[in-house]
């Protein structure tokens, strides 16, 4: 979307697929210039490390808020009435069990590279759940799709903005709310001896760029800095592309047509 706006402003834009964390390597050397989506929740450490080198610049928030949490489909509420409170999880651990994890429940976490401290969380909150890590987001949602088709129990890591919480009906588990202390200070929270006895942090999604962008393309730099979209707008667009199978370019063009004033403001016209 940003790319199309920049094109309207007369820039050439080349889209490159890059791995989430590996992209920082490219941003540092200037091979990649802009990354529009760095999540507070998973990319923060890598981003801080990169900005500290002085070769990557943080261009501010995108306006979207990232949510990541344990998630269950709505039909599980009938089988486990105490949800979404996390304390109810232990009562229905067996509902969520599979032959491999029995009698413990099974929680499908994200790829190990996403971090998220789910193993620690399960231990700190004394949840009777075994944390199984999916290898990729594709595997993660493949399991969700499969379980949803069969209306089978499943508890997994879901994040927003994403098409999954739009397509499937469900809720986040309500853990004790995240604070920085909870992660750093073992004495905080329910479990006095361990950290991570709370939910996951929620936070803004950032934009970052190669530090050279400012001098090389000042116009683009300020335009990207001005870029803002809300969760709802983004969610609707993601759903249109991924769920309704609309063409990505068409969806972006539609947004551009409907919000001309917004993006004209970004590029200063």
């Amino acid at each position, binding site marked *: 979307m940003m790319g199309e706006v920049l094109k309207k402003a007369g820039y050439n834009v080349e889209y490159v697929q890059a791995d989430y964390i590996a992209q920082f390597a490219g941003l540092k050397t200037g091979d990649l210039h802009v990354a529009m989506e760095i999540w507070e929740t998973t990319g923060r450490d890598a981003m801080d490390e990169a900005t500290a080198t002085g070769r990557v610049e943080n261009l501010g928030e995108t306006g979207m808020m990232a949510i990541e949490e344990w998630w269950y489909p709505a039909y599980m509420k009938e089988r486990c009435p105490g949800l979404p409170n996390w304390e109810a999880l232990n009562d229905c651990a067996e509902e969520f069990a599979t032959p491999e994890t029995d009698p413990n429940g099974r929680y499908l976490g994200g*790829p190990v590279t996403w971090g998220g401290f789910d193993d620690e969380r399960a231990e700190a909150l004394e949840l009777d759940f075994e944390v199984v890590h999916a290898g990729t987001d594709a595997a993660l949602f493949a399991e969700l799709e499969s379980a949803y088709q069969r209306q089978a129990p499943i508890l997994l890591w879901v994040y927003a903005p994403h098409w999954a919480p739009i397509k499937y009906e469900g809720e986040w588990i309500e853990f004790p709310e995240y604070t920085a202390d909870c992660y750093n200070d073992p004495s905080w929270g329910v479990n006095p001896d361990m950290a991570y006895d709370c939910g996951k942090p929620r936070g803004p999604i950032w934009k970052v760029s190669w530090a050279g962008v400012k001098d090389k393309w000042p116009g683009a730099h300020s335009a990207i800095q001005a870029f803002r979209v809300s969760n709802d707008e983004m969610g609707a667009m993601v759903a249109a592309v991924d769920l309704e199978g609309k063409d990505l370019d068409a969806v972006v063009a539609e947004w551009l047509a409907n919000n001309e004033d917004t993006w004209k403001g970004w590029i200063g016209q």
Partner: protein
Amino acid sequence: MSRLEQLGLSRNAMLWLLLFVVTFVLAQVSKDLAKEMDARWLMKVPRDLRIPMRGDISDFMSWLVESASFGLFTFTELTRSISWLIEQPYDFVRALVIEGFVRGQGNEAVQVLPSLSWLAVAFVVAAMGHYAGSWRLAIFVGLCFLYLAVFGQWDSAMVTLSSILIAVPFGVVGGLLLGIAGYRWPWFDRLMTPVLDLMQTVPIFAYLVPILFLFGFGPVSALIATVIYAMPPMVRVTTLALHNVPSEIREFGKMVGCTRRQMTWRVLVPSALPSLMVGVNQVIMLSLNMVIIASMIGAGGLGYDVLTSLRRLDIGAGLEAGVAIVVLAIALDRLSQAFANRPPPEHSERQLNALQRHPWLVTCLAVVLGTGLVGLLLPAVQQYPAGAEITTGAFWENLVRYINVNFFDQLEAVKTFMLVNFMVPVKRFLLGLPWPWVLLLITFAGWQLGGIRLALLCCALTLFILVNGLWAKAMTTVYLCGVSVIIACIIGIPIGILAAENDRANRIVQAFIDTLQTLPSFVYLIPVVMLFRVGDFSAMIAVVLYALAPAVRYAAHGIRSIDPQLIEAGIVSGCTRRQLLLRIKLPLALPEIMLGINQTIMLALSMLVITALVGTRDLGQEVYIALTKADTGRGIVAGVSVACIAIIADRLIAAAALRKKRRLGLA
């Protein structure tokens, strides 16, 4: 004479039996024993023994990227200029087949020249089919490309095709030069052999990060990774083919007074051409295998379509893009094979004009120009009309849903049975072994099968894994790979035997395994996860599907290449069909089957890295984590560990097969 020998066991077999029993007992008791004796170092490699190579490699890499210099220019500048050089022809081909030539900035960009129309591209490949082979081939190749257009894969397929068109010449020329160098200087050959082994066995994910650092993000890095992966067979084939040129031809070259250069390029290379084309064919196929991985670092094309469709669980679209890769691969494979087998051109005395000499070239030019001009007026000629595209996506989606809803419980039962009775015990067994014993056992096996040099090699490679602290992950790798190979052999070898005995079965089996090998594994990985959940079992199924092909192929080949006189002799002495198979064919085909198992192991190992995408905890995962964290050292150390396992298995099995062959009097 002991009892056992009376039972018909040779001394050698007894030794192995004894070793196995000891190993088995150790696997059961050593964990408790180690606890009892307070000797945890037996199970876990002590920290003092570890040499953290990964830090050093990472440091070296950042030095290379940031400060290495040749005085006039830095190392990074050198690699960047190489990638610039590769980018030029790539951009040109891409513009030619798909994007058109553009000038200008942003939205004001104007197309100077349109790309080739889809009709023109399809016509040109069909013409090549006729030129190299026959009308049948021309129609077949044309239909393949028509499929791409009808199923709406055209644009992506052309992006993929253009990267193949660039990667293959680089791979072929590079491989040819290295191969010739290896032929000319034996020391260079000896130097290259281990390097080639590593290039073929280190998973691509492991060296993607350094390539990204050096050559930048984007299609060029993907191209370079593809070339590294696809080149080794070309080098090997070249050296072998040159050695196999009949000495008469070489003598003849000497007689007419060739210089060294003339000898190489005018005599040796042309006469080795048919064998060299086999290498070219391999390079094309391997390049297509890389399509998915290349698309992870920005190559785009069909691989990218497969990835994105599966990420949004659009199984149908993913499958169609995957099949498009298969179709492209088959078309290119048949074309290059036809070029390899083309009879030499006939020399005619008659003077011909340009049209008569190059009928196809002229027609192709005419078609290209014609469709280009008509395309300006009629868009359907330039670009296949979107309205006429068809898709079977919904069908596949519903099929998986149907199986999932109706048969999940049965599948789950099978899976649990396999896990409990087979996979988990094997895992326990392997992870329960103390490492010094395994080290000893591997070294001993090397010594028994191939002498002291093999023993030293095996010992050194095992030590590499040990000192890098990857023991547990390596054993998990061995477990997953071992289990998959066993199952692949149980399924594959009987199919191979069937294919060897029955011609019709053979054709069906061939088509089936060709498809399995070129279909990107990601396509079936996601449905497998839907049906079997994340975990070892799903990974195993994916590995078995991928590694099945060589088990089938080598078994069939082994049985077919038995000397028919031996079979005659069996029939004359009154064997039943069953006896013929069990007593004569199978034992004689055994060395060949062992080589097939060897290849199965290699493929299984290369696939393990991809199964990390569904969440395994082995070396593949280690490589994958390193990739996502851009940790060069970690990736390379884990990748080389995978290569170590592969090389140990390869050398041991090859040595065993050789011994067997000698004993059967075949070698």
